[in-house]
């Protein structure tokens, strides 16, 4: 692994009996970047995260984090983690939980207090600080989960669906916190289904499909690589699909993705002749969702 990579997956596969979790992953995750894991449900994102955390052992291959290979007994000294589902003891108050977590992580409370105060203000946790977790809403508990992932000043933070339950304002503040930590050199890995919010934040993307990483790309690469997206005023009828397919166009309800820009005019002609109105034409590369859908329609892609 080069020094510029915080995580390396080398020929990693994970099988659950006869069911594949992740197949043949060869990926380096860059240090100091926000890396987004993108993919449908059950394509291996969480499995990959758990192998990086050392909670799952790869069936084949090797996972290296911070230059050291992982196994089930590796201690996560400098890693923060927010799992998809959170459950804390319900009788703790929010403040008590952080005190307890600090103790478990070998820290004095006063060492983490400055960060906790900043995060508490940023995520507006102050009114809930003395409430028991039992009486906190799902969103508040999610904020607690986010803060605990960063509280011991880790160099790598892995967040699985971190914005679940957060309102739009809090999502904005959450990404603010992410950027603050990134500036301090922290590497962040996020798994999210909300592509719209993630595309403005991530520097690096890993696309999962059918239990494989089908593509890795930097944010700059996405800018002009996704073809063109045509938004129509109604859903495309099935009778047009074969004709559009010959023009390298794929259809998703009222969206037509044209991967070959040279054929864009022909696709537009076909649509107009069929009496379909065109509402918008934009570069698909500027839209992570279109890029991802295009990637799936192409049946994957190279690294």
């Amino acid at each position, binding site marked *: 692994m080069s020094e510029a990579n915080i995580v390396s997956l080398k020929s990693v596969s994970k099988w659950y009996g006869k069911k594949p979790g992740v197949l043949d992953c060869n990926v380096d995750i860059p240090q100091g970047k926000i890396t987004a894991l993108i993919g449908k449900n059950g394509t291996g994102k969480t499995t990959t995260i*758990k192998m990086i*955390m050392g909670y799952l052992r790869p069936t084949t291959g090797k996972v290296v984090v911070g230059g050291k290979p992982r196994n089930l007994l590796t201690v996560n000294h400098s890693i923060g983690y927010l*799992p998809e*589902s959170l459950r804390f*003891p*319900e009788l*703790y108050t929010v403040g008590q939980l952080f005190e307890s977590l600090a*103790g478990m992580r070998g*820290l004095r409370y006063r060492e983490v207090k400055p960060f906790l105060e900043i995060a508490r203000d940023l995520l507006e946790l102050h009114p809930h600080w003395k409430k028991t977790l039992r009486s906190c809403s799902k969103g508040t508990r999610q904020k607690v989960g986010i803060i605990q992932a960063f509280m011991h000043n880790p160099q790598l933070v892995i967040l699985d669906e971190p914005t679940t339950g957060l309102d739009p304002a809090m999502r904005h503040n959450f990404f603010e916190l992410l950027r603050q930590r990134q500036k301090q050199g922290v590497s962040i890995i996020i798994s999210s289904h909300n592509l719209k919010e993630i595309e403005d934040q991530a520097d690096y993307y890993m696309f999962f499909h059918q239990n494989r990483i089908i593509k890795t790309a930097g944010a700059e690469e996405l800018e002009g690589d996704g073809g063109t997206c045509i938004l129509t005023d109604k859903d495309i009828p099935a009778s047009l699909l074969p004709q559009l397919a010959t023009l390298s166009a794929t259809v998703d309800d009222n969206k037509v993705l044209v991967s070959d820009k040279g054929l864009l005019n022909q696709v537009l002609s076909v649509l107009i002749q069929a009496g379909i109105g065109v509402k918008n034409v934009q570069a698909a590369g500027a839209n992570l969702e279109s890029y991802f859908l295009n990637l799936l329609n192409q049946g994957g892609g190279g690294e």
Partner: protein
Amino acid sequence: MRVFWVAYDTLYKILSLKVLILSLAIVLAIVFASLAMSNYLTSAGPAWHDLFRKYIFQDFMGTLYLFAQMLLTPFVVIISALAAQDMYRGEAEQIYLTGGLSKPVAFTGRILGLLVYIFLLWWALFVAAGATVLCTGLGNIEPSMVGILAKLLLNSVALSFLVCSLIGLTKVVVVGITPILISHYWLTVNNDITMETAGNAVHNAVNYLLPLYTFTTRGFDSPHILMKYQDLSPWHGTFSLVAFIAFFLLASAVLYMVKQD
């Protein structure tokens, strides 16, 4: 120091408001049900109390131990299953295994927390029973009371570790609750014991497997329930119990270290 924080956290995990209330309710129910079944409430006047004090005391203590084993031990099994569920399954535990907390330390803390809870439960029963004995004037707190409750405590610890092993192995909570059936089968076999059945193959097998409740009849056809408890645990029983605890603890630890979820 980390280990104590994990133990502290484990207590918080176990003690939800419902569990806290239920724990106290069960302890109090055991004590008052035992008192109600001891003829204390039906004996008319102080003279009758004085006359039958010894028998009322024996009835009370015998029934208390029986109910404790019938209700409190299964309760410990259920609580252990719930605690083990968090330890061995899902993402609840994974959030803790960051920031330098190693699995051996986390496991030690979890077990320590569970042990403290089980101890507090039996201690509460001892205090409630002792207070009842003193307040009703039935007798004094005897060393045998401590001894028997300590053995029942150890017995529930062995079952608790068995629960942890089962859940670690199968990841199924329902499987973790099955030791309740074992403890009740054991209770039934031993409770039905008479001089004729003592020493037969089934009885011996049960007592070697679950040795705490071992009983010798000493020539009584229908021994009093308290006597059964006072004769608890011969040498092979104590040895087996300690061996079971060590084995299940080790198995639980290994399963915790190698668990994948």
